[in-house]
């Protein structure tokens, strides 16, 4: 059978606040629909709850103690070892590999190049409107523009009249249209910026979460027995103008409860906004008849505390900061191949009446690590699974420190599907 394509979707700072993970409040119908055709890992954890270290870790399949990246200031190839990455491995195995949006963390940790040319066949795409993300584009109660944490916008009024994730979706769809006729399989990685702060999203998504429906975290106090070293003082959100105006005490706050609910409201609204982008992307994949030949994996680089333990953001070892969604759709294996012309991923509007509850897909409860993405995607695509790393493995370019999760994809009932035999 032809080699399977791979679409890897990485959603920045997305915790499993999704319908398919049991969240009753959040509207995420398109990701839930993906989950209904996928294997959903209920207990997947990042190896460090901060962007660059987590991304370099799972994209190289090495733990942070091997990449030696705990901050944002080093490039693993120069600093720890010339470790191969997931896209690089697919590229070496005949794939066209393409990056859209935030896959590697930009800057030093990816050599200011998204690790090109090692990882990518084409120059990585970054949406032009990203440069306005942290500028004063948020209309405050005073009618002035600010650089706020909470930033629902009228898209027509923002610079360029668009938002980064919209641009990323458009670019990814254009690439799918081009790659569809390619003679070789593709590995397309799409990195969405939301719900990373600032919560800058189309203002209409706020209507999905009326404040009266938004509760506080179930445990909003700093636990008495929490060692001070374990506490994350959420310094990043404090720099935003609307949070600064609260004059919060350092390090424990607390944030006034009405503002806590507004933060949670905007996080959920951002999740629903990203869900629509994922929905458009998957609907295009379907429309191009690529759903029958493309593995789709959706995950995040780490979670995000929404007031639990009196904490916000990531930067800790708590489950709310390290647990991530991990869904993998494998055509003919996690779901029957779509009939010719059939649709697996029709776009679902989160504003439509509460979509009927989605039939859950397959689930795995065992604990897994984001590290396992490398060996598992390689195995599912029929490539040789990289060997286990020796300890230490700084001198080894290709090996894996994560478990291979292929055994979770052996479902008796679909074995007759051609790709499953692959």
């Amino acid at each position, binding site marked *: 059978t032809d080699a399977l394509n791979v679409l890897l979707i990485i959603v920045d700072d997305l915790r499993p606040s999704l319908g398919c993970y049991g969240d009753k409040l959040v509207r995420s119908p398109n990701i839930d629909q993906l989950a209904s055709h996928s294997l959903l890992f209920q*207990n*997947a*954890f*990042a*190896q*460090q*709850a*901060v962007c660059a270290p987590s991304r370099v870790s799972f994209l190289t399949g090495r*733990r*942070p*103690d091997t990449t*030696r990246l*705990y*901050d*944002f*200031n*080093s490039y693993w190839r120069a600093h720890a070892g010339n470790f191969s990455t997931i896209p690089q491995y697919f590229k070496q195995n005949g794939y066209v590999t393409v990056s859209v949006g935030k896959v590697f963390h930009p800057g030093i940790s990816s050599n200011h190049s998204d690790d090109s040319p090692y990882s990518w066949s084409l120059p990585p795409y970054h949406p032009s409107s990203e440069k306005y993300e942290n500028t004063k584009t948020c209309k405050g109660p005073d009618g002035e523009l600010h650089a706020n944490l909470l930033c629902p916008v009228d898209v027509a009024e923002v610079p360029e009249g668009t938002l980064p994730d919209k641009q990323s979706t458009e670019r990814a769809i254009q690439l799918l249209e081009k790659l569809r006729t390619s003679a070789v399989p593709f590995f397309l990685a799409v990195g969405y910026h939301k719900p990373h702060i600032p919560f800058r999203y189309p203002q209409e998504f706020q209507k999905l979460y009326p404040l009266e429906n938004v509760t506080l975290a*179930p*445990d909003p106090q700093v*636990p008495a*027995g*929490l*060692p*001070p*070293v*374990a*506490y*994350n*003082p*959420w*310094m*990043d959100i404090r720099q935003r103008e609307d949070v600064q105006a609260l004059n919060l005490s*350092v*390090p*424990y706050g607390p944030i006034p409860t009405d503002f806590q609910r507004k933060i949670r409201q905007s996080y959920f609204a951002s999740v629903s906004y990203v869900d629509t982008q994922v929905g458009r992307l998957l609907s295009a994949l379907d429309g191009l008849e690529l759903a029958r030949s493309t593995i789709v994996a959706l995950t995040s680089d780490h979670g995000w505390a929404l007031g*639990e*333990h009196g904490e916000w*953001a990531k*930067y*800790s*070892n*708590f*489950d709310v900061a*390290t647990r991530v969604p991990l869904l993998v759709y494998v055509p003919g294996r996690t779901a029957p191949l779509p009939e010719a012309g059939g649709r697996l991923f029709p776009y679902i509007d989160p504003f439509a009446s509460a979509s009927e509850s989605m039939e859950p897909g397959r689930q795995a*409860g*065992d*604990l*897994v*690590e984001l590290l396992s993405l490398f060996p598992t995607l390689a195995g599912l695509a029929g490539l040789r699974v990289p060997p286990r790393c020796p300890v230490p493995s700084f001198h080894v370019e290709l090996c894996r420190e994560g478990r291979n999760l292929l055994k979770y994809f052996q479902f008796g009932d679909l074995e007759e599907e051609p790709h499953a035999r692959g």
Partner: protein
Amino acid sequence: NPRELVAYSQYPRPADAPQWNSDKPSLKDIKVMGYSIRTVDYRYTVWVGFSPREFLANFSDVHAGELYFVDSDPWQDHNVYNASQGRALPPPLMP
């Protein structure tokens, strides 16, 4: 056995008390590393001395610990690490 499956996480800190760069310490400022072992039953974390020059964690220099049991404390609000000290910890817990 699913109970034996483990997920490891870690997080660096510049000091034992929260300070302006506790969230994102630069490598040279890392003094403590929190290593977590997670299973379906518990999360066990030790915050130990860390040398950014040698990239070495010193597991005999324990600054603090956390132990939460999933069934009885799913939100991880009741740290029973101190109460667990002095009793033999199950082997998978030993780093």
